[in-house]
Protein backbone atom coordinates (compact mmCIF):
# COMPACT_ATOMS: atom_id res chain seq x y z
CA UNK A 1 0.00 0.00 0.00
CA UNK A 2 1.23 3.41 -0.85
CA UNK A 3 1.80 5.51 2.19
CA UNK A 4 2.13 8.53 0.04
CA UNK A 5 -0.97 9.08 -1.99
CA UNK A 6 -1.21 12.33 -3.76
CA UNK A 7 -4.32 14.02 -2.68
CA UNK A 8 -5.98 17.14 -3.81
CA UNK A 9 -5.53 20.11 -1.56
CA UNK A 10 -8.40 20.87 0.70
CA UNK A 11 -9.39 24.48 0.86
CA UNK A 12 -10.04 25.78 4.32
CA UNK A 13 -13.80 25.75 4.65
CA UNK A 14 -15.17 29.17 5.55
CA UNK A 15 -17.98 29.05 7.98
CA UNK A 16 -21.14 31.05 8.26
CA UNK A 17 -20.92 33.52 11.05
CA UNK A 18 -22.73 32.72 14.21
CA UNK A 19 -25.07 35.67 14.23
CA UNK A 20 -26.87 34.56 11.13
CA UNK A 21 -25.03 36.89 8.78
CA UNK A 22 -23.45 34.61 6.32
CA UNK A 23 -20.17 34.64 4.59
CA UNK A 24 -21.18 32.81 1.51
CA UNK A 25 -18.44 30.79 -0.03
CA UNK A 26 -19.61 27.51 -1.38
CA UNK A 27 -16.09 26.26 -1.97
CA UNK A 28 -15.80 25.07 1.56
CA UNK A 29 -19.03 23.16 1.66
CA UNK A 30 -19.73 19.62 0.78
CA UNK A 31 -23.33 20.03 -0.30
CA UNK A 32 -26.49 21.35 1.27
CA UNK A 33 -26.59 18.86 4.15
CA UNK A 34 -23.11 19.99 5.06
CA UNK A 35 -24.27 23.61 5.02
CA UNK A 36 -27.23 22.69 7.19
CA UNK A 37 -24.91 20.86 9.55
CA UNK A 38 -22.72 23.92 9.86
CA UNK A 39 -25.75 26.09 10.50
CA UNK A 40 -26.96 23.60 13.08
CA UNK A 41 -23.61 23.64 14.84
CA UNK A 42 -23.93 27.37 15.12
CA UNK A 43 -27.12 26.85 17.07
CA UNK A 44 -24.83 25.11 19.56
CA UNK A 45 -27.32 22.45 20.42
CA UNK A 46 -27.41 18.74 19.80
CA UNK A 47 -28.46 18.01 16.25
CA UNK A 48 -31.28 15.84 17.55
CA UNK A 49 -32.68 18.83 19.42
CA UNK A 50 -32.16 21.42 16.74
CA UNK A 51 -35.06 23.53 15.54
CA UNK A 52 -35.59 22.43 11.98
CA UNK A 53 -37.77 25.44 11.34
CA UNK A 54 -35.04 27.80 12.40
CA UNK A 55 -32.52 25.84 10.42
CA UNK A 56 -34.65 26.01 7.30
CA UNK A 57 -34.91 29.74 7.80
CA UNK A 58 -31.16 30.13 8.03
CA UNK A 59 -30.57 27.98 5.01
CA UNK A 60 -32.99 29.98 2.92
CA UNK A 61 -31.23 33.15 4.06
CA UNK A 62 -27.95 31.58 3.06
CA UNK A 63 -29.25 30.80 -0.39
CA UNK A 64 -30.74 34.28 -0.79
CA UNK A 65 -27.39 35.77 0.12
CA UNK A 66 -25.62 33.59 -2.38
CA UNK A 67 -28.01 34.67 -5.07
CA UNK A 68 -27.61 38.32 -4.12
CA UNK A 69 -23.89 37.89 -4.58
CA UNK A 70 -24.59 36.26 -7.92
CA UNK A 71 -22.85 33.09 -6.86
CA UNK A 72 -23.63 30.08 -8.88
CA UNK A 73 -25.46 27.57 -6.82
CA UNK A 74 -25.37 23.94 -7.73
CA UNK A 75 -28.69 22.22 -8.24
CA UNK A 76 -28.27 20.34 -4.96
CA UNK A 77 -28.44 23.59 -3.04
CA UNK A 78 -31.46 24.87 -4.94
CA UNK A 79 -33.37 21.65 -4.61
CA UNK A 80 -32.72 21.70 -0.91
CA UNK A 81 -33.88 25.29 -0.72
CA UNK A 82 -37.10 24.45 -2.47
CA UNK A 83 -37.61 21.45 -0.29
CA UNK A 84 -36.92 23.38 2.91
CA UNK A 85 -39.31 26.14 1.86
CA UNK A 86 -41.91 23.48 1.32
CA UNK A 87 -41.07 21.83 4.62
CA UNK A 88 -41.35 25.15 6.34
CA UNK A 89 -44.81 25.73 4.98
CA UNK A 90 -45.85 22.24 5.98
CA UNK A 91 -44.61 22.82 9.48
CA UNK A 92 -46.38 26.15 9.83
CA UNK A 93 -49.66 25.36 8.22
CA UNK A 94 -52.14 23.04 9.84
CA UNK A 95 -51.55 19.50 8.72
CA UNK A 96 -54.00 18.28 6.10
CA UNK A 97 -55.85 15.05 6.69
CA UNK A 98 -53.42 12.18 6.73
CA UNK A 99 -53.90 10.46 3.41
CA UNK A 100 -51.32 7.89 4.32
CA UNK A 101 -49.09 8.70 1.38
CA UNK A 102 -47.53 12.07 1.93
CA UNK A 103 -45.36 12.24 5.03
CA UNK A 104 -46.36 14.90 7.49
CA UNK A 105 -44.25 18.01 8.02
CA UNK A 106 -43.09 16.62 11.32
CA UNK A 107 -42.02 13.39 9.67
CA UNK A 108 -40.15 15.24 6.99
CA UNK A 109 -38.40 17.27 9.64
CA UNK A 110 -37.54 14.11 11.53
CA UNK A 111 -36.03 12.64 8.37
CA UNK A 112 -33.89 15.71 7.87
CA UNK A 113 -32.80 15.58 11.47
CA UNK A 114 -31.74 11.97 10.98
CA UNK A 115 -29.83 12.85 7.86
CA UNK A 116 -27.99 15.60 9.66
CA UNK A 117 -27.13 13.30 12.51
CA UNK A 118 -25.96 10.55 10.17
CA UNK A 119 -23.69 12.83 8.20
CA UNK A 120 -22.39 14.40 11.39
CA UNK A 121 -21.52 10.94 12.67
CA UNK A 122 -19.63 10.18 9.48
CA UNK A 123 -17.79 13.49 9.54
CA UNK A 124 -16.74 12.75 13.09
CA UNK A 125 -15.74 9.22 12.09
CA UNK A 126 -13.59 10.63 9.29
CA UNK A 127 -11.81 12.94 11.69
CA UNK A 128 -11.36 10.01 14.07
CA UNK A 129 -9.81 7.88 11.36
CA UNK A 130 -7.31 10.50 10.39
CA UNK A 131 -6.34 11.09 13.98
CA UNK A 132 -5.19 7.50 14.22
CA UNK A 133 -1.47 6.76 14.04
CA UNK A 134 -1.01 6.23 10.34
CA UNK A 135 1.29 3.82 8.61
CA UNK A 136 4.25 5.64 7.18
CA UNK A 137 4.08 8.51 9.61
CA UNK A 138 3.43 7.18 13.10
CA UNK A 139 3.89 3.49 12.46
CA UNK A 140 6.65 2.35 10.20
CA UNK A 141 6.96 -0.89 8.28
CA UNK A 142 10.20 -2.79 7.95
CA UNK A 143 12.62 -0.49 6.21
CA UNK A 144 14.54 -3.21 4.45
CA UNK A 145 12.08 -5.93 3.62
CA UNK A 146 13.64 -9.19 2.52
CA UNK A 147 12.06 -10.71 -0.51
CA UNK A 148 11.25 -14.34 -0.08
CA UNK A 149 12.75 -16.56 -2.75
CA UNK A 150 10.18 -17.97 -5.01
CA UNK A 151 11.05 -21.38 -6.32
CA UNK A 152 8.84 -22.26 -9.22
CA UNK A 153 8.52 -25.94 -9.87
CA UNK A 154 6.73 -26.64 -13.09
CA UNK A 155 4.69 -29.75 -13.11
CA UNK A 156 4.25 -30.96 -16.62
CA UNK A 157 1.02 -32.57 -17.49
CA UNK A 158 1.15 -35.39 -19.96
CA UNK A 159 -0.49 -38.75 -19.95
CA UNK A 160 0.66 -41.96 -21.51
CA UNK A 161 -2.09 -41.43 -24.02
CA UNK A 162 -0.58 -38.07 -24.98
CA UNK A 163 2.78 -39.75 -25.40
CA UNK A 164 1.45 -42.51 -27.60
CA UNK A 165 -0.62 -40.07 -29.61
CA UNK A 166 2.45 -37.98 -30.18
CA UNK A 167 4.43 -40.96 -31.33
CA UNK A 168 1.67 -42.19 -33.58
CA UNK A 169 1.27 -38.72 -35.02
CA UNK A 170 4.95 -38.56 -35.66
CA UNK A 171 5.02 -41.99 -37.21
CA UNK A 172 2.12 -41.43 -39.50
CA UNK A 173 3.42 -38.09 -40.58
CA UNK A 174 6.71 -39.23 -41.98
CA UNK A 175 9.09 -36.51 -42.72
CA UNK A 176 10.13 -34.80 -45.90
CA UNK A 177 13.72 -33.58 -45.82
CA UNK A 178 15.04 -36.33 -43.67
CA UNK A 179 13.64 -39.13 -45.77
CA UNK A 180 16.04 -41.06 -47.83
CA UNK A 181 14.76 -43.50 -50.33
CA UNK A 182 16.88 -46.46 -49.46
CA UNK A 183 17.32 -49.85 -50.99
CA UNK A 184 14.16 -51.21 -52.49
CA UNK A 185 12.52 -53.67 -50.29
CA UNK A 186 11.20 -55.57 -53.29
CA UNK A 187 12.41 -59.08 -53.79
CA UNK A 188 15.24 -58.92 -56.30
CA UNK A 189 15.75 -61.35 -59.15
CA UNK A 190 19.23 -62.09 -57.83
CA UNK A 191 17.80 -63.08 -54.49
CA UNK A 192 15.21 -65.24 -56.19
CA UNK A 193 17.87 -66.94 -58.30
CA UNK A 194 19.96 -67.71 -55.28
CA UNK A 195 16.96 -68.96 -53.41
CA UNK A 196 15.77 -71.22 -56.23
CA UNK A 197 19.23 -72.65 -56.79
CA UNK A 198 19.47 -73.43 -53.14
CA UNK A 199 16.00 -74.90 -52.77
CA UNK A 200 15.59 -76.80 -55.99
CA UNK A 201 16.45 -80.32 -55.31
CA UNK A 202 17.47 -82.74 -57.99
CA UNK A 203 14.15 -84.55 -57.81
CA UNK A 204 12.35 -85.28 -61.08
CA UNK A 205 8.91 -84.08 -59.88
CA UNK A 206 7.21 -81.00 -61.08
CA UNK A 207 6.57 -78.57 -58.28
CA UNK A 208 4.65 -75.33 -58.30
CA UNK A 209 6.74 -72.22 -58.38
CA UNK A 210 4.68 -70.78 -55.55
CA UNK A 211 5.89 -73.51 -53.23
CA UNK A 212 9.38 -72.00 -53.52
CA UNK A 213 8.24 -68.58 -52.53
CA UNK A 214 9.26 -67.36 -49.12
CA UNK A 215 6.37 -67.75 -46.69
CA UNK A 216 7.33 -65.02 -44.27
CA UNK A 217 6.44 -62.12 -46.49
CA UNK A 218 3.64 -60.31 -44.82
CA UNK A 219 3.67 -57.31 -47.07
CA UNK A 220 1.53 -57.85 -50.13
CA UNK A 221 3.68 -55.71 -52.35
CA UNK A 222 6.81 -57.52 -51.37
CA UNK A 223 5.04 -60.80 -51.88
CA UNK A 224 4.00 -59.79 -55.35
CA UNK A 225 7.52 -58.69 -56.14
CA UNK A 226 8.75 -62.05 -54.94
CA UNK A 227 6.38 -63.81 -57.31
CA UNK A 228 7.63 -61.66 -60.17
CA UNK A 229 11.29 -62.04 -59.34
CA UNK A 230 10.99 -65.79 -58.90
CA UNK A 231 9.30 -66.06 -62.25
CA UNK A 232 12.08 -64.00 -63.79
CA UNK A 233 14.65 -66.17 -62.06
CA UNK A 234 12.89 -69.25 -63.38
CA UNK A 235 13.03 -67.96 -66.92
CA UNK A 236 16.68 -67.11 -66.52
CA UNK A 237 17.48 -70.59 -65.26
CA UNK A 238 15.51 -72.09 -68.17
CA UNK A 239 17.58 -69.99 -70.56
CA UNK A 240 20.70 -71.27 -68.86
CA UNK A 241 19.39 -74.78 -69.32
CA UNK A 242 19.10 -75.47 -65.64
CA UNK A 243 15.36 -75.64 -65.36
CA UNK A 244 12.21 -76.73 -67.08
CA UNK A 245 9.02 -74.78 -66.72
CA UNK A 246 5.49 -75.39 -67.78
CA UNK A 247 2.03 -73.95 -67.34
CA UNK A 248 -0.93 -76.08 -68.24
CA UNK A 249 -3.46 -73.31 -68.79
CA UNK A 250 -3.99 -69.59 -68.62
CA UNK A 251 -3.62 -68.50 -64.98
CA UNK A 252 -2.82 -72.03 -64.11
CA UNK A 253 -0.07 -72.85 -61.65
CA UNK A 254 3.48 -72.55 -62.93
CA UNK A 255 5.36 -75.79 -62.50
CA UNK A 256 9.10 -76.14 -62.43
CA UNK A 257 11.64 -78.92 -62.12
CA UNK A 258 15.37 -79.14 -62.42
CA UNK A 259 16.45 -80.18 -65.82
CA UNK A 260 17.99 -83.57 -65.45
CA UNK A 261 21.48 -84.04 -66.76
CA UNK A 262 20.39 -86.54 -69.28
CA UNK A 263 17.55 -84.66 -70.94
Amino acid at each position, binding site marked *: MSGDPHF*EEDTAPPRPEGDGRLVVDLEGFEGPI*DVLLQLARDQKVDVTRISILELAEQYLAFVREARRLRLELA*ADYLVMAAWLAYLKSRL*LLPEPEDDGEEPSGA*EMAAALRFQL*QRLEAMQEAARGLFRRPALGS*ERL*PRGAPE*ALDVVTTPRYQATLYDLLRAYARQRSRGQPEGLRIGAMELYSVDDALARLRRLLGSGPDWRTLSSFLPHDLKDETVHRSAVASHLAATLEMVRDGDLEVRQDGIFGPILVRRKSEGT
Partner: protein
Amino acid sequence: MTDLSDRYQQLRLLEALVFAAAEPLDRKELARHLPEGTDIDRLMEELANLYANRGVTLERVGDGWAFRTAADLAPLMKIERKVSRKLSRAAMETLAIVAYHQPITRAEIEEIRGVGLSKGTLDTLLEAGWVRPRGRRRTPGRPVTWCTTEGFLDHFGLESRDDLPGVEELKAAGLLDTRPALTALTARGKLGDYMDDDEDSGDEDSIEETDESLEELLAEDFGEDLAEAEGGAEDDDGGQTRGH
Protein backbone atom coordinates in the same frame (compact mmCIF):
# COMPACT_ATOMS: atom_id res chain seq x y z
CA MET B 1 17.89 -28.38 8.96
CA THR B 2 15.63 -26.67 11.45
CA ASP B 3 13.18 -29.06 13.02
CA LEU B 4 9.71 -27.77 12.37
CA SER B 5 8.01 -30.20 14.70
CA ASP B 6 9.47 -28.07 17.47
CA ARG B 7 7.07 -25.38 18.59
CA TYR B 8 9.78 -22.83 19.21
CA GLN B 9 11.16 -23.36 15.72
CA GLN B 10 7.69 -22.78 14.32
CA LEU B 11 7.55 -19.54 16.24
CA ARG B 12 10.96 -18.52 14.93
CA LEU B 13 9.94 -19.24 11.36
CA LEU B 14 6.70 -17.26 11.67
CA GLU B 15 8.63 -14.39 13.19
CA ALA B 16 11.11 -14.42 10.35
CA LEU B 17 8.44 -14.62 7.68
CA VAL B 18 6.41 -11.69 8.95
CA PHE B 19 9.56 -9.74 9.72
CA ALA B 20 10.88 -10.18 6.21
CA ALA B 21 7.80 -8.77 4.55
CA ALA B 22 6.82 -5.13 4.33
CA GLU B 23 3.20 -6.04 3.72
CA PRO B 24 1.01 -8.03 6.06
CA LEU B 25 1.10 -11.79 5.55
CA ASP B 26 -2.10 -13.70 6.04
CA ARG B 27 -2.75 -17.05 7.60
CA LYS B 28 -2.76 -18.85 4.29
CA GLU B 29 0.59 -17.46 3.26
CA LEU B 30 2.12 -18.38 6.58
CA ALA B 31 0.61 -21.85 6.61
CA ARG B 32 2.43 -22.77 3.41
CA HIS B 33 5.70 -22.80 5.30
CA LEU B 34 4.54 -24.85 8.26
CA PRO B 35 3.49 -28.43 8.81
CA GLU B 36 -0.14 -29.06 8.02
CA GLY B 37 -2.47 -28.51 10.90
CA THR B 38 -0.25 -25.98 12.65
CA ASP B 39 -2.37 -23.60 14.72
CA ILE B 40 -1.10 -20.39 13.16
CA ASP B 41 -3.44 -18.15 15.13
CA ARG B 42 -2.23 -19.40 18.48
CA LEU B 43 1.42 -19.16 17.53
CA MET B 44 0.91 -15.65 16.24
CA GLU B 45 -0.81 -14.69 19.46
CA GLU B 46 2.18 -16.02 21.33
CA LEU B 47 4.48 -14.06 19.07
CA ALA B 48 2.42 -10.91 19.56
CA ASN B 49 2.83 -11.32 23.33
CA LEU B 50 6.59 -11.57 22.89
CA TYR B 51 6.52 -8.22 21.15
CA ALA B 52 3.95 -6.50 23.33
CA ASN B 53 5.31 -3.24 24.62
CA ARG B 54 8.40 -3.43 22.47
CA GLY B 55 9.70 -0.87 20.01
CA VAL B 56 8.32 -3.00 17.21
CA THR B 57 4.96 -4.67 17.67
CA LEU B 58 3.15 -7.42 15.87
CA GLU B 59 -0.07 -5.98 14.53
CA ARG B 60 -3.11 -7.85 13.42
CA VAL B 61 -4.29 -6.56 10.04
CA GLY B 62 -7.49 -8.15 8.83
CA ASP B 63 -6.57 -11.74 8.08
CA GLY B 64 -2.89 -11.04 8.37
CA TRP B 65 -0.09 -9.87 10.57
CA ALA B 66 2.63 -7.28 10.21
CA PHE B 67 5.43 -5.85 12.30
CA ARG B 68 5.16 -2.09 12.77
CA THR B 69 7.06 0.35 14.94
CA ALA B 70 5.17 1.35 18.06
CA ALA B 71 3.13 4.50 17.47
CA ASP B 72 4.25 6.17 20.71
CA LEU B 73 7.84 6.29 19.46
CA ALA B 74 6.98 8.28 16.37
CA PRO B 75 7.95 11.69 17.80
CA LEU B 76 11.29 10.33 18.97
CA MET B 77 12.10 8.74 15.66
CA LYS B 78 12.00 12.11 13.96
CA ILE B 79 10.35 10.57 10.97
CA GLU B 80 10.77 12.61 7.89
CA ARG B 81 7.25 12.91 6.72
CA LYS B 82 6.91 12.84 3.06
CA VAL B 83 5.10 15.88 1.87
CA SER B 84 1.90 14.20 0.94
CA ARG B 85 -0.97 16.44 0.26
CA LYS B 86 -3.94 16.16 2.46
CA LEU B 87 -6.92 14.22 1.38
CA SER B 88 -9.89 16.39 0.44
CA ARG B 89 -12.72 16.55 2.92
CA ALA B 90 -14.98 14.88 0.42
CA ALA B 91 -12.54 11.98 0.13
CA MET B 92 -12.08 11.68 3.89
CA GLU B 93 -15.82 11.62 4.48
CA THR B 94 -16.36 9.20 1.66
CA LEU B 95 -13.69 6.91 3.09
CA ALA B 96 -15.34 6.98 6.50
CA ILE B 97 -18.73 6.28 4.94
CA VAL B 98 -17.38 3.33 2.97
CA ALA B 99 -15.58 2.02 6.06
CA TYR B 100 -18.59 2.20 8.35
CA HIS B 101 -21.30 1.29 5.88
CA GLN B 102 -19.62 -1.27 3.64
CA PRO B 103 -20.60 -2.73 1.32
CA ILE B 104 -22.07 0.44 -0.07
CA THR B 105 -22.98 1.77 -3.49
CA ARG B 106 -22.03 5.11 -4.88
CA ALA B 107 -25.67 6.24 -4.79
CA GLU B 108 -25.84 5.38 -1.10
CA ILE B 109 -22.72 7.38 -0.38
CA GLU B 110 -24.35 10.29 -2.14
CA GLU B 111 -27.53 9.74 -0.16
CA ILE B 112 -25.64 9.97 3.10
CA ARG B 113 -23.59 12.97 2.10
CA GLY B 114 -26.57 14.67 0.50
CA VAL B 115 -24.50 15.63 -2.49
CA GLY B 116 -23.26 14.10 -5.70
CA LEU B 117 -19.88 12.43 -5.49
CA SER B 118 -17.36 13.96 -7.82
CA LYS B 119 -15.71 11.47 -10.08
CA GLY B 120 -12.26 11.85 -8.64
CA THR B 121 -13.20 11.09 -5.07
CA LEU B 122 -13.52 7.33 -5.28
CA ASP B 123 -10.60 7.26 -7.70
CA THR B 124 -8.39 8.93 -5.13
CA LEU B 125 -9.33 6.36 -2.52
CA LEU B 126 -8.91 3.56 -5.00
CA GLU B 127 -5.47 4.84 -5.92
CA ALA B 128 -4.49 5.06 -2.28
CA GLY B 129 -5.42 1.38 -2.06
CA TRP B 130 -7.97 1.99 0.65
CA VAL B 131 -11.18 1.03 -1.09
CA ARG B 132 -12.03 -1.49 -3.73
CA PRO B 133 -15.11 -2.57 -5.63
CA ARG B 134 -16.56 -5.57 -3.94
CA GLY B 135 -19.45 -6.78 -5.99
CA ARG B 136 -22.80 -5.72 -7.29
CA ARG B 137 -25.95 -5.02 -5.40
CA ARG B 138 -28.80 -7.24 -6.48
CA THR B 139 -31.06 -4.32 -7.20
CA PRO B 140 -32.14 -2.80 -10.50
CA GLY B 141 -29.12 -1.51 -12.36
CA ARG B 142 -26.88 -3.86 -10.38
CA PRO B 143 -24.76 -1.05 -8.95
CA VAL B 144 -21.20 -1.75 -7.85
CA THR B 145 -20.64 -1.95 -4.12
CA TRP B 146 -17.50 -0.68 -2.41
CA CYS B 147 -15.61 -1.82 0.63
CA THR B 148 -12.33 -1.05 2.34
CA THR B 149 -9.13 -3.00 1.81
CA GLU B 150 -6.49 -4.59 3.97
CA GLY B 151 -4.32 -1.61 3.05
CA PHE B 152 -6.89 0.59 4.71
CA LEU B 153 -6.75 -1.42 7.91
CA ASP B 154 -2.96 -1.42 7.76
CA HIS B 155 -2.73 2.31 7.20
CA PHE B 156 -5.00 3.21 10.06
CA GLY B 157 -3.76 0.48 12.38
CA LEU B 158 -7.06 -1.35 12.59
CA GLU B 159 -7.35 -5.05 13.28
CA SER B 160 -10.60 -5.42 11.40
CA ARG B 161 -13.66 -3.49 10.41
CA ASP B 162 -15.16 -4.21 13.79
CA ASP B 163 -12.23 -2.32 15.21
CA LEU B 164 -13.44 0.96 13.68
CA PRO B 165 -13.83 3.46 16.49
CA GLY B 166 -17.40 3.76 17.75
CA VAL B 167 -18.79 1.35 15.17
CA GLU B 168 -20.94 -0.49 17.71
CA GLU B 169 -22.43 2.68 19.14
CA LEU B 170 -23.20 4.05 15.71
CA LYS B 171 -24.86 0.82 14.77
CA ALA B 172 -26.92 0.78 17.94
CA ALA B 173 -27.97 4.37 17.27
CA GLY B 174 -29.19 3.31 13.84
CA LEU B 175 -26.81 5.68 12.12
CA LEU B 176 -25.25 2.98 9.96
CA ASP B 177 -28.27 2.82 7.71
CA THR B 178 -27.78 3.71 4.09
CA ARG B 179 -31.44 3.98 3.28
CA PRO B 180 -33.07 7.34 2.70
CA ALA B 181 -33.75 8.91 6.06
CA LEU B 182 -37.51 8.60 6.12
CA THR B 183 -37.43 4.98 4.98
CA ALA B 184 -34.79 4.14 7.54
CA LEU B 185 -36.65 5.80 10.37
CA THR B 186 -40.02 4.35 9.44
CA ALA B 187 -38.57 0.88 9.04
CA ARG B 188 -37.01 1.04 12.45
CA GLY B 189 -40.05 2.67 14.07
CA LYS B 190 -37.80 5.50 15.16
CA LEU B 191 -39.61 8.27 13.36
CA GLY B 192 -41.10 9.59 16.60
CA ASP B 193 -37.69 9.84 18.23
CA TYR B 194 -36.58 12.35 15.70
CA MET B 195 -39.76 14.41 15.80
CA ASP B 196 -39.75 17.71 17.55
CA ASP B 197 -42.91 18.53 19.44
CA ASP B 198 -42.27 22.25 19.17
CA GLU B 199 -42.07 22.15 15.45
CA ASP B 200 -45.66 23.03 14.63
CA SER B 201 -45.76 25.94 17.06
CA GLY B 202 -43.68 28.23 14.88
CA ASP B 203 -44.38 31.88 14.70
CA GLU B 204 -47.04 32.99 12.31
CA ASP B 205 -45.08 35.96 11.02
CA SER B 206 -42.67 33.94 9.07
CA ILE B 207 -45.31 32.49 6.80
CA GLU B 208 -45.43 35.43 4.48
CA GLU B 209 -41.69 35.57 4.32
CA THR B 210 -41.37 31.88 3.58
CA ASP B 211 -43.86 32.04 0.81
CA GLU B 212 -42.04 34.94 -0.65
CA SER B 213 -38.70 33.24 -0.61
CA LEU B 214 -40.20 30.14 -2.15
CA GLU B 215 -41.73 32.17 -4.93
CA GLU B 216 -38.56 34.00 -5.47
CA LEU B 217 -36.56 30.88 -5.63
CA LEU B 218 -38.74 29.06 -8.00
CA ALA B 219 -39.70 32.01 -10.17
CA GLU B 220 -36.59 33.78 -11.21
CA ASP B 221 -34.01 31.51 -12.66
CA PHE B 222 -34.48 28.31 -10.81
CA GLY B 223 -34.70 26.30 -13.95
CA GLU B 224 -31.74 28.05 -15.45
CA ASP B 225 -29.52 27.18 -12.57
CA LEU B 226 -30.68 23.65 -12.67
CA ALA B 227 -29.79 23.25 -16.29
CA GLU B 228 -26.41 24.76 -15.66
CA ALA B 229 -25.82 22.47 -12.81
CA GLU B 230 -26.76 19.49 -14.90
CA GLY B 231 -24.16 20.55 -17.38
CA GLY B 232 -21.74 20.15 -14.54
CA ALA B 233 -22.56 16.46 -14.59
CA GLU B 234 -21.35 15.60 -11.13
CA ASP B 235 -24.21 17.08 -9.23
CA ASP B 236 -27.01 15.55 -11.19
CA ASP B 237 -28.27 13.59 -8.26
CA GLY B 238 -29.21 16.58 -6.19
CA GLY B 239 -32.72 15.32 -5.63
CA GLN B 240 -31.59 12.84 -3.06
CA THR B 241 -31.29 15.34 -0.30
CA ARG B 242 -35.00 15.07 0.11
CA GLY B 243 -36.13 12.97 2.94
CA HIS B 244 -37.71 10.20 0.92
